[in-house]
């Protein structure tokens, strides 16, 4: 049995770019590729927000009002609904003056059971070191 670990590293701001949306879409879609793989082959995704990328995790995004697009907030909640591992860089949360209360930490309102975690960057580095493929967005 082989498990391929994919790390989706999000460092860009949420809007006027498709990068973080693509990261989440690909991370979610990676959960479906097993049906096309050989028996026993698995894919394990992890999504990490760091640098300016932590801004993707802000609550109460008004993307439809401002940009006419669906919000990253809903994509992030769908990721948690589907039990993806979501990490948010602690140092960057502090650097940007954010608090845990201001961030999307769960998707309980849509039935999600998994929570995001605010972790030191060293933990995100460990995820990168133990991943088979690193994808930066």
């Amino acid at each position, binding site marked *: 049995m082989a498990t391929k670990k994919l790390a989706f590293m999000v460092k860009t701001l949420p809007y006027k770019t498709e990068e973080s949306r693509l990261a989440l879409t690909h991370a*979610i*879609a990676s*959960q*479906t590729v097993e*049906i096309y793989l050989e028996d026993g082959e698995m894919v394990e995704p992890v999504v990490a927000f760091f640098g300016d990328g932590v801004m993707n995790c802000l609550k109460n995004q008004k993307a439809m009002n401002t940009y006419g697009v669906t919000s990253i907030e809903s994509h992030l909640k769908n990721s948690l*609904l*589907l*039990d993806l591992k979501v990490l948010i860089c602690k140092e960057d949360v502090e650097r940007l003056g954010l608090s845990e209360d201001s961030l999307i930490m769960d998707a309980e309102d849509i039935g999600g059971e998994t929570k995001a975690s605010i972790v030191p960057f060293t933990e995100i580095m460990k995820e990168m070191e133990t991943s088979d493929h690193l994808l930066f967005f």
Partner: protein
Amino acid sequence: MGELSSMTPTETLDVLGRVCPYPLVLTKKAVEKLPSGGLLKILCDAPASAEDSLPRFAEKQGYKFESTKLDDKGYWEIYIQKS
């Protein structure tokens, strides 16, 4: 009426309005929670999921699968029984 559709489902999953990959991923999650022998009924209106990824998933897992397209309603009723 097929073998599975004549049975009372253990759980029903409504993924109407959701497109690929959500129907499959939500189905996988729902099946994981089913007991062995449990029957999941799925309401799905995404053609790629109903006609490709969901039957492929069931086949790969060795689960019983049954699907009926309800043309008048515009969606599929899909049954997956966990082995």
